[in-house]
């Protein structure tokens, strides 16, 4: 009862006399208490956890959660689609048994859900097949970029003697438009899946390497201060609890964000004729095929369907990536 009464009575200069407040307190309490050294340490702000704060920030973002569900569903469906009953092959050319002709440009319907293309292939199957190709490409490029980026970034950050050289290399590559580098490499190496991966890896690792380098320099300098000033553990704790998780989350993020980028470049390169061979269904090839017949309004579904799926995927990745990036930045953990 005393506690309740006292809590509502803030330290009052003048509102109620000290004696009046004191009178409410039991005299028997004026004896020494047992000192508990652990209790003294228990205050402070130990309730901060990097991943928990990141998750909280992320879960608060309703839009991002919606896109997470959407992307999850899309990805799942892309990979189970061929296993479902009644699915057609993305490359098989369907022939009308009655006429012996190809089922050309059949409008969407019960047999061909998304219709067929100009040579009688099933668009539904091609879209999911193309999405698989594009996602695989994106994933491969993402992982390769991550490995290259981390390696270069780590060397860049740790080996002081190489700092200048790598910075110059970075500046050179960074000064050339990405489009040009991509086009040139794809042109020289001749179109293929491998070419595509190499060309995109050649530019994509830059940003990550730079980030890793900066982060390592921060950690390195902290370590240095730590050693020279004997400050004890707090710095190390900051590194382990804050900087490292941040590093890890940004690396994950960049890998995820490179996927829509890769998909976009694939479409672009395909347009200029430097994309994947037409025999491989990919989102780039589908968009390009759709573009060639887009002037006939009744055939526009061949352009619309692939671009809708493609846009849903890239937007989801992008929004999710940025939501995660905001949530994972320790500076936003307020």
């Amino acid at each position, binding site marked *: 009862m005393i506690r309740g009464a006292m809590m509502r009575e803030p330290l009052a200069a003048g509102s109620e006399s000290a004696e009046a407040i004191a009178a409410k307190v039991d005299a028997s309490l004026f004896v020494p208490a047992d000192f508990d050294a652990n209790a003294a340490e228990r205050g402070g702000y130990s309730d901060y956890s990097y991943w928990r704060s990141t998750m909280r920030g992320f879960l608060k973002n309703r839009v991002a959660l919606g896109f997470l569900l959407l992307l999850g569903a899309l990805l799942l469906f892309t990979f189970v689609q061929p296993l479902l009953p009644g699915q057609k092959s993305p490359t098989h050319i369907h022939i009308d048994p009655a006429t012996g002709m190809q089922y050309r440009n059949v409008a969407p319907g019960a047999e061909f859900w998304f219709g067929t293309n100009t040579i009688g292939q099933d668009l539904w199957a091609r879209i999911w097949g193309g999405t698989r190709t594009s996602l695989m490409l994106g994933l491969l490029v993402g992982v390769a970029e991550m490995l290259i980026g981390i390696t270069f970034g780590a060397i860049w950050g740790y080996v002081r003697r190489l700092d200048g050289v790598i910075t110059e290399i970075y500046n050179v590559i960074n000064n050339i*438009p990405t489009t040009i580098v991509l086009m040139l490499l794809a042109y020289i190496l001749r179109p293929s899946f491998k070419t595509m991966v190499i060309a995109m890896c050649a530019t994509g690792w830059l940003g990550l390497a730079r980030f890793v380098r900066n982060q390592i320099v921060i950690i390195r300098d902290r370590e240095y201060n730590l050693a020279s000033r004997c400050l004890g553990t707090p710095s190390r704790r900051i590194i382990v609890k804050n900087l490292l998780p941040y590093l890890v989350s940004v690396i994950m993020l960049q890998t995820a964000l490179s996927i829509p980028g890769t998909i976009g470049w694939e479409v672009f390169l395909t347009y*200029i004729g430097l994309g994947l061979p037409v025999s491989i269904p990919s989102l780039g090839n589908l968009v390009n095929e759709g*573009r060639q017949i887009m002037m006939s309004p009744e055939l526009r579904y061949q352009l619309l369907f692939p671009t809708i799926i493609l846009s849903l995927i890239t937007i989801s990745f992008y929004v999710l990536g940025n939501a995660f990036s905001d949530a994972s930045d320790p500076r936003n953990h307020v």
Partner: protein
Amino acid sequence: MLKYTIKRLGQSLITLFIVVSAVFLLMRLLPVEGYFGDGYDKLSESQREAVLQKMGLLDPWYVQMGAFYKGLLRGDLGVSTIYRKDVPVLEVIGPRVPYSMKFGIVATCLALIAGLGMGVSMAKNKGKGLDKLWTGYVVFVNAVPLAVYLLFIQLYGTSLLDLPLLFDKYMPSSWILPAVSMSLGGIAGYAMWMRRYMVDELNKDYIKLAKAKGLSQSTIMVRHVMRNAYVPMAQYLPASILMTISGSIYIESLYSIPGMGGLLVDVIQRQDNTMVQALVLIFSSVGIIGLFLGDLLMALFDPRIKLSKSGASR
């Protein structure tokens, strides 16, 4: 300032040299068929050798490079091999430069005006409706591949607004869609960076002092935040030129604009090696020069850079 300019110029020249050499050497990796056009199969082995000999392609690479640089200094980038056989490359490119430049300049100005305005309004209304609306636009432009949304702008924009589908230099209305299309990426970029820089500035200590002085929020915005945010934006200007280049390659070809971007797509499809080489060099140089100018612009605005030894602080 002069010292900084010279230093930065030297840096750019070195970068340019490395890029030119790298492009040249990479192009040597290509199979020689590309220099013959359609007639390759009809020629005998010795005839082929004679042609290659004449073009100097059988020399060791350093001799070729020497010859290439000699030509470059004289303003000679070689002759087209397929696209317009035996016509000097610069003669093919020359008439196309004005188109690319006009579109580039118009698009950059559009992007600058609209993008900065958008960014400022986003930062001022941070977290509110307008901010969210423009953020949606930025997300869209960044997330949806440019090859896709530009296509749809052409497809539906031309029919909805009753504009010509292809570029026609005698028809002013055919300028509108390509120019706007080219600026869309830049607008998103400027808006995003302007917003970010302004929010960054808002969180700085000197804003606290400005506020403690008794300045009103709007004065702080105009006199301190916006002013300071323009400085890093100056550096972003060339980056946006790079973006315009990327866009122009696609857009010029989409609308059949007789500029350099469309030409690059054409010569890639026709596999004209010397033309590809020349255009790649031109585009890379534009990028490098743009970044150089951006750094100068920034140094002009930021009194701290004149003293710093490290040069570009990006």
